[in-house]
């Protein structure tokens, strides 16, 4: 009787989980399958899940309707560049917060934590103005007047979101767990601080580097509000902005839109599936990431 009850509970649990997983995955399936249907099958009742004719031509046709290739490339540039910058600068800062003593350390670290809590919308407009009036760029003079600064450019897309509080926080957590003896030994051997960081500490930070790289790439690829406000020309749009522009057409062509949406989700999904353990590790390493 007891065993039977236990068994029943497990079955109910499994049924609930399966239902839950279906609710989570169905929209993604519906997206990918819509992208592969002919127009006739999209507008039929009752709906067809599996296309009878696999219309792969939707993808090249969508790419011809809007410059998704260009959008894709811009997003890639933005995400990769932000990842490179964040990994280096946040690691340096996280290392210093964990291992070095300097004036104002606690206050600066408090600033890092505070930055994480401030919603992007709060700083959106002033950040836009900083980028627009950045001195000596985009035709601006020394006082930041006369030109467009970094608006509608790669530096403008990349730089403002390139160093994150989360990454610094994560690196600090990681570097505080390394044994002290290591650096003492290196210092006794006459190793410079700079050398110590690059040659000894950073190579040990592999797991933290991987977590930060993955999260930063994901954030860069998925970014929307910032690229939306600072890009003007079609040639500078990122894939997420491009997706919303494509919807502004009078009649939405769902097969093409879903093809574009599939393309917009694929890289990050691939990263997630390949490096899943790093996502979970990132959350347990920091004990957070909401």
């Amino acid at each position, binding site marked *: 009787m007891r065993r039977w009850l236990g068994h029943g509970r*497990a079955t109910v*649990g*499994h049924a609930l*989980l399966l239902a*839950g*997983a279906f*609710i*989570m995955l169905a*929209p993604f399936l*519906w*997206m990918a399958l819509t992208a592969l249907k002919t127009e006739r099958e999209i*507008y039929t*009742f*009752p709906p067809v899940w599996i296309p009878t004719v696999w219309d792969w031509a939707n993808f090249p046709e969508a790419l011809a309707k809007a410059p998704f290739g260009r959008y894709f490339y811009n997003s890639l540039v933005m995400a990769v560049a932000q990842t490179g910058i964040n990994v280096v*600068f*946040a690691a*340096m*800062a996280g290392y*210093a*917060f964990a291992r070095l003593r*300097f004036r104002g350390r606690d206050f*600066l670290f408090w*600033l890092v934590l505070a*930055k*994480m*809590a*401030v*919603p992007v*919308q*709060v*700083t*959106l*407009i*002033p950040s836009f*103005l*900083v980028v627009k009036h950045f001195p000596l760029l985009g035709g601006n003079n020394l006082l930041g007047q006369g030109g467009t600064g970094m608006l509608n450019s790669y530096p403008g897309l990349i*730089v*403002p*979101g*390139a160093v994150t*509080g989360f990454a610094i926080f994560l690196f600090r957590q990681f570097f505080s767990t390394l044994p002290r003896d290591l650096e003492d030994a290196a210092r006794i051997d006459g190793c410079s601080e700079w050398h110590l960081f690059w040659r000894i500490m950073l190579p040990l930070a592999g797991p933290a580097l991987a977590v930060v790289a993955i999260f930063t790439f994901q954030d860069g690829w*998925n970014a*929307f*509000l910032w690229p939306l*406000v600072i890009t003007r020309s079609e040639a500078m749009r990122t894939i*997420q902005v491009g*997706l*919303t522009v494509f*919807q502004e057409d009078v009649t939405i062509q769902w097969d093409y839109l*879903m093809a574009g*949406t599939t393309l*917009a*989700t694929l890289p*990050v*999904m691939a*990263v997630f599936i390949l490096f899943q353990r790093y996502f979970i590790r990132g959350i347990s390493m920091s*004990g*957070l*990431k*909401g």
Partner: protein
Amino acid sequence: MFFVSPAMLHFLTFTTLPVLGVLLLSFTDYSVIRDTHWVGLRNYQDLGRDEVFWTALRNTFAITFVSLPVSMALALAMAVVLNEPIRGRVFYRAAFYLPKVTATIAIATVWLWIYSPQFGLLNSGLRSLGLRPVDVLGNPDTALYGVVAVYIWRTMGAKMVIFLAGLQAIPIHLYEAARIDGAGRWHQFTRITLPLLAPATFFVLVTGMLDVFKVFEEVYVMTNGGPVHATTTIAHQVYLQGFQYFRMGYAGAQAVIMFGAVVVLTALNRLLFREKVDYA
């Protein structure tokens, strides 16, 4: 000091300066196009009379009060089930977390298609069951729920993973001792799991509340704030006023209110729960 300077220089330029800047901006009528004047508190006075802004505030709080209890309860339930040695755990965990890694714009686009009044998946399903189709996003009474549902769906998995990490930190021997004392499963849940999960719960609650202030992409894609402002949020208003109407001073005042709400919320949390909670 040298090690932190690049990152701190970046923070100074793109966070500290903008936070101070938005305060200044909110006392002006800056608009990119026309000359700028110092207007004192006029933006704030206008905000007080702005029906749409009040609607946006109400909507933001409504999203908080509806979505947080539901998504936290679902996330906790899923975490408890997945904490057991169940077959396919890794698969389920990944499936629930997937919306968190996917671009919100893409998610909102897919849901727009699902909600589509004529051939969307939702209405096809309703019609198959013999029910009348509904235009969830086109009806001012239901549009906000349509947005909230997507928001819950999108944020549940991330909450679940935090609960799961919290559950795994609870020592097994507590449950063993409770079982020996004859405590049932429900008793174990309410007397051990829930109290010991409190830090994780507070963390999910606080980050969840802060996250609602950022709700923008679903609204932008699915409803653009409509119909008749039924789904507009503070974040959406800041964007609209600042970058559609170019009333940047006015949008700045809205951003300051938003910042104030975040500060109050964080301080309140510090006062009420002296638990060690980190924000991200």
